């Protein structure tokens, strides 16, 4: 579904991605791990079109989307839940959700139905509908960010560190939702620094380090790499 080949992205003269290649097949749930500065977020931002690649290809559902503007990529069916959430703080929860539906052109009824669907996934959002998004707790804001991305009915949902800075119970709930969305048919690309959490959910993963893919395989295979396991899961992980 998503196929990235030899992606190179630069910030000025700093090369953040040095030829990253990765694939996500339809229905899969794939993780991208790695330390700070490895290029995880850069990869997502390049796919969505906020950053322009210097070279390399991004194909989504047999279409070349490398270098397209974000609105075209979103319209093609890619959703991004960005790091740091980027909700529209002065708008209400409901308005934020409606904003997420704007790439769609299938009428009020379908959008209402979608609001009901995401409110069923995150019941707290139904209760908070009229509240300003900026007044939500961190966990609620993250749920809103995910729900807003879902409003566009993405075929591929990319999540950038969705559990960052959240309480353990909320982390569990977010992870449960991610698994559920995948089971219901949404293809997922999950970027996480919290490797243990991510590995419990994903079927396959990539490890990035300073702009290059240094490992790709299943979580079980990753556990067979002592050095990587030690680096990213801590020495005590089994």
């Amino acid at each position, binding site marked *: 579904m998503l196929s990235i080949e030899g992606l190179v992205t630069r910030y000025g003269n700093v090369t953040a991605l040095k030829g990253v290649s990765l694939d996500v097949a339809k229905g899969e749930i794939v993780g991208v791990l790695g330390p700070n500065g490895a290029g995880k977020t850069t990869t997502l931002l390049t796919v969505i*079109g906020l950053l322009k690649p210097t070279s390399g290809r991004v194909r989504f559902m047999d279409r070349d989307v490398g270098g397209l*503007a974000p609105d075209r990529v979103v319209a093609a069916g890619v959703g991004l839940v*960005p790091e740091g959430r*980027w909700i529209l703080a002065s708008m*209400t929860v409901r308005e934020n959700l409606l*904003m*997420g539906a704007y790439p769609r052109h299938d009428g009020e009824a379908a959008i209402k139905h979608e609001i009901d669907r995401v409110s069923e996934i995150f019941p707290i959002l139904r*209760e908070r509908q009229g509240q300003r998004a900026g007044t939500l707790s961190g966990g609620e804001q993250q749920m809103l960010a995910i729900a807003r991305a879902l409003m*566009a009915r993405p075929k591929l949902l990319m999540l950038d560190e969705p559990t960052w800075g959240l309480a353990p119970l909320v982390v569990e709930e977010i992870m449960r939702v991610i698994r559920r969305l995948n089971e219901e048919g949404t293809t997922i690309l999950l970027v996480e620094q919290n490797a243990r959490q991510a590995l419990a959910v994903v079927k396959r993963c990539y490890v990035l380090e300073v702009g290059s893919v240094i490992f790709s395989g299943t979580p079980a295979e990753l556990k067979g790499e002592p050095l990587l396991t030690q680096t990213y899961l801590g020495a005590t992980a089994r």
Partner: protein
Amino acid sequence: MDYYVAIASIIGIHALLGLSVYVVAISGQMSFGQQGFFAIGAYLAGMSTAMWGLGLVPALVLGALVAGAMGFVVGFPALRVRGLYLAIATFGFGEIVRLAFLNVRYTENIGGRVVGPNGAEGFRHVRYVYDRGFTGLHYLAVILVVLVVVVILFFLLERSKVGAKLRAVEEDETAAAMIGINVTRVKVVAFAAAAAVAGLGGGLFIHYSTYIDHDMVALPLAIASVTYPLLGGLGSFVGTLLGAIVLVGLTEGLRGLQGMREFVYGGLIILMMIFRPRGIVDEALVLRVKSWLSPRAPREPVQAP
């Protein structure tokens, strides 16, 4: 009576100019160049009635359309820059327009009068309205009708998809882009619409005053037009209307104080900045009014089960 009619007319015209800045402001930008579009609308509408024999309505529409088209053309390059840079760029545009009209001579002799843009002497004798027996009160009605139409359009705009997109872009361009909004298109369309509203105000102005010159569309007008929405608050277009009423009203109402007028005026502005830094009608007030108006939306957050 005539005096109050005149003040009301000026408020109406300046409100349009303020609304023009407001549209740009709610897409997250600040323009100091809307007086340029005001000038374009004024000169074009003036030439239409005084020289080309058009009626008032086609003249106003033509002025607004040409100003809007200019807004579209200027919008693409100008909106690549933001903040202070955009303020400078748009002010530069306003100055270009002003200096262009300082130099343009395109006059005709009509009934012994020199009519048309005449360089530094300005554009005189746009008497279409008064030649047809309109009184100041009649023309005030015209201004108010136009203002009401524009306000209705704004009301619809704020409830529409486009209005919501504008607010999203204002709040956070990156977030807006990430949820699939074409940020450039939204900004350029808003800028063009804003320019058209300013042009409409200009067309109304020249027919009200019968006269315009380059000096009238210089920096003071730019500052006034930005002050209306900022003082009124960016929560709703109503703020801009209030801003125009308060500021023009103050300018006139404080005349009795003579030399003290500027002191009192400045003092009131400073008090505003202290007590309502986000303007009279700020976002918080708008949310509160909205929750009064729609009893279905819960006012207090409901406790989680």
